[in-house]
């Protein structure tokens, strides 16, 4: 089996949404008209240009993210998937995911998306109750969300949905009830995110003015604990800080990020991490859709920057991503993806202190794991152990 060979993912970014959610700092834009053919051609060209030096890879996952990629014409999705399949061999168990918003108009396309090659959807449900969805500025309601989940379950091989908790004014009981209701609808995978106030968002602006008050840390922490306990008990243990799945049902594409495997980023604002000739490169595309388009037209790809990641930086990146996984970091895999032996990336004194303090655990085979206590304060733990 090749289960342990590093994967190679392709991320495709669709930067458009029907409206801008007030908490969102993703690269999303609202446009009244979109030149669908122009976008399809540009995505294909970006993909092709970037693919050239990596012809020897085998694609293990494809992810359409956004923005709202469920707004893409299924034909565009099909064209991108077909081109990927033409450029590389696909792994037999290749995972092809698309992020979908639960609006009914988009749900109507699920069958066509399935036909285009999408095998897995991740639905942005966020909440199941109408008031909460209004607070989050979402364009859908609770019933719409339920229907979207049901449709996904019927149409796709695999599906997941996202929830946002620790919302202003939310109580612990209300959240556990909501989570219970969500569990009744869930399949093999669930992403549950604590609401964060990101710079530049409307929510952050309101928070600074005092017009919106974030939930207190204590309740938010209790929710984090309750979430893990409830989902554990229902056979959906956490495999990452905010991601839960039945064993074997983790998102392979996202696992690639956390394991610091290679991925290629297509579309505006997409990032990539690619190894070539033993050197790790970080790529970053232009964020603004129009700038990106112009860049593709001029240079064949939408790149804003392509930087060499120094070995020490690569080791830091592999460390900070890897410790988010409950399975931790396996030393041979670590060295394979970033070139540095795991222990050379760690400060021995900090490591000893963190192990003694019960924040980290070292297994017999050298695997480094953040304990439940360590996972919740991972940022501080990383400061202690990273070189």
């Amino acid at each position, binding site marked *: 089996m090749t289960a342990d060979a590093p994967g190679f993912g392709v*991320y495709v970014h669709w930067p458009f949404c029907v409206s801008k959610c007030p908490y969102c700092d993703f690269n999303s834009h609202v446009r009244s008209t979109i030149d669908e053919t122009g976008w399809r051609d540009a995505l294909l060209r970006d993909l092709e240009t970037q693919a050239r030096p990596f012809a020897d890879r085998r694609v293990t996952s494809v992810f359409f*993210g956004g923005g709202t990629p469920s707004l893409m014409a299924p034909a565009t999705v099909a064209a991108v998937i077909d081109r990927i399949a033409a450029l590389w061999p696909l792994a037999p168990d290749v995972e092809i995911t698309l992020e979908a918003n639960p609006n009914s108009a988009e749900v109507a396309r699920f069958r066509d998306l399935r036909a285009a090659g999408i095998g897995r959807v991740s639905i942005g449900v966020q909440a199941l109750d109408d008031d909460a969805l209004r607070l989050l500025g979402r364009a859908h309601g609770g019933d719409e969300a339920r229907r979207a989940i049901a449709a996904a379950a019927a149409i796709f091989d695999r599906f997941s949905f996202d929830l946002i908790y620790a919302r202003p004014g939310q109580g612990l009981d209300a959240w556990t009830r909501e989570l219970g209701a969500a569990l009744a609808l869930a399949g093999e995978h669930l992403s549950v*995110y*604590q609401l*964060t106030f990101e710079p530049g968002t409307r929510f952050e602006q309101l928070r600074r003015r005092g017009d919106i008050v974030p939930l207190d*840390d*204590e309740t*938010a*922490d209790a929710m*984090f604990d309750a979430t893990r306990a409830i989902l554990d008990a229902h056979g959906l243990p956490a495999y*990452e*800080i*905010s*991601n839960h799945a039945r064993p074997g049902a983790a998102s392979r594409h*996202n696992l690639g*990020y956390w394991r*610091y495997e290679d*991925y290629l*980023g297509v579309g505006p604002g*997409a*990032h*990539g*991490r690619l190894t070539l000739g033993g050197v790790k490169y*970080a790529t*970053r595309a232009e964020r603004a859709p129009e700038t990106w388009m112009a860049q593709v037209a001029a240079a064949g790809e939408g790149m804003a920057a392509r930087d060499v990641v120094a070995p020490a*930086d690569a080791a*830091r*990146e592999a460390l*900070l*991503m890897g410790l*988010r996984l409950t399975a931790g970091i396996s030393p041979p895999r670590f060295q394979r993806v970033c070139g540095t032996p795991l222990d050379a990336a760690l400060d021995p004194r900090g490591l000893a*202190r*963190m192990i003694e*303090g019960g*924040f980290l655990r070292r297994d017999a085979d050298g695997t480094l794991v953040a304990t439940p206590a360590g*996972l*919740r*304060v*991972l*940022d*501080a*733990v*990383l*400061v*202690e152990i*990273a070189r």
Partner: protein
Amino acid sequence: MTDLDRIRNFAIIAHIDHGKSTLADRLIQFCGGVDQREFRDQMLDSMDIERERGITIKAQTVRLAYRAQDGKDYVLNLMDTPGHVDFAYEVSRSLAACEGSILVVDASQGVEAQTLANVYQAIDNGHEIVPVLNKIDLPAADPGRVKQQIEDVIGIDASGAVEVSAKTGLNIGAVLEALVQRLPAPVGDAAAPLKALLVDSWYDPYLGVVVLVRIRDGRLVRGQKIRMMAAGATYEVDRVGVFTPKPKDMAALGPGEMGFITAGIKAVADVKVGDTITEERRPAAEPLPGFKPSLPVVFCGLFPTDTADFEHLRESLAKLRLNDASFVYEPESSAALGFGFRCGFLGLLHLEIIQERLEREFDLDLIATAPSVVYKVHLTNGEVVDVYNPVDMPDPVRVDHIEEPWIKATIFVPDEYLGAVLKLCEDRRGRQDQLTYAGTRAMLVYRLPLAEVVFDFYDRLKSVSRGYASFDYAVDSYEEGDVVKLAILVNAEPVDALSIMVHRAEAESRGRVLCVKLKELIPQQLFKIAIQAAIGGRIIARETVSALRKDVTAKCYGGDISRKRKLLEKQKEGKKRMRQFGKVDIPQSAFFAALKAREN
């Protein structure tokens, strides 16, 4: 060289903000010292921190060329001096180099504490005083009342006071005329052996050490071999000049003149402010009376944040001391902070300014420990030791009693704030000496323990009087005091850099406030942190910083890993600015900030 009777040397003295620097600007412009293009406000406040804080720290000199109404050309040497109490030493140096002073008084404010302190120093130096009433353009200006006040409070004739507006330039010519007519010309003998007073010195990155001099006798020329009489060093003069305020080379400087020299001086120790410079071949018999160096009264430890910067700190202190002879330093080591220096200052503002200059001009990152005064500790065996650092306090069983320094403070305050100011002085263990009135203002003379004043007295005084009270002080005497050492423990380990000396009656409340403040300043960490205050082993206050509960970013930013790495790197940088005590990181800012805290 200039004829003696064509020279006038004068200082400008005033309470802070009464307009010295602005008046200096106008005098320079009037005499055409700089053209319009080069002019900037507060011409003489050349340090960035002077311009930013709007205060004068260093004394500055400028040579002005003035054609008087009698048709003759005069050389006027101007010194702009600082007004803040902490810099009284700079003032005294400038005064020794001049024959007269312009006393600037804000015509809307009247006489203030530093007006009084500075003018008495000038009178002690035998100065002729020219009173100038400034800010006459303000509607609130009341020159009649202020003249009366100058006569009543200071006791000098104010009938000839010149009324000016340094802001609008009104009557600047009259100030210059008054200088020419009323100030005595300097005296001196050009043929006698060189005698020049070393007024100031500083390090210039291009010129090396620059020395500011006032010639009493003889001549100073390029190529001359000179000797520093007290330091014993000899040098050859390679540049002679004056500030106009731009540096301008001169063939020679003669009696009565002020200017600068450079002489390839390398050893900082060779230039002692107050020393006499003479000729190598024909030395003067006697040096000039030097300055009475003012004694530092506040001490604190300065440590490099990065221990590798120790040597750099030492060199920087040496260079800075050239420019400010009023602070002292010697090496010190601390269990918590490593190697650094114990430094003595004239006051807390002086301390802050030196620290800031080290950080800015020499690019150092520093940790300052609690400021302390000098205690005289009488031991049971009859010995008396001076203790500059709480860490050095002898074991209490060996101590018979402790004496602490007291000051005599003069405070001017409008009637309506008198009550608040009295309360502040009483709270700080003050004893009233005198309370008199000058118009609607009270003049208070209080004796206070210096330790009660160094931390934040000045800030508090300004705040309870809405900025209207003014303050000056002089160290007065030592008195027995019931002083104890307050130790701070972090996770049961004493942190030497945080221990302070306090009056016993206040120890508990200071200990409590310190613990609370430290709790605010120390960020939550992975482990619980216990902060305790103790007197001689007895815990009197404690606070706990609970362990960090959760800090991880919940959201997955897709493939944007760089953003996460930058965050990690920033946090690692932040950690570098902390000091480790066992498992605990204490931000460097905590050391100083915590100690300023008091119960209100």
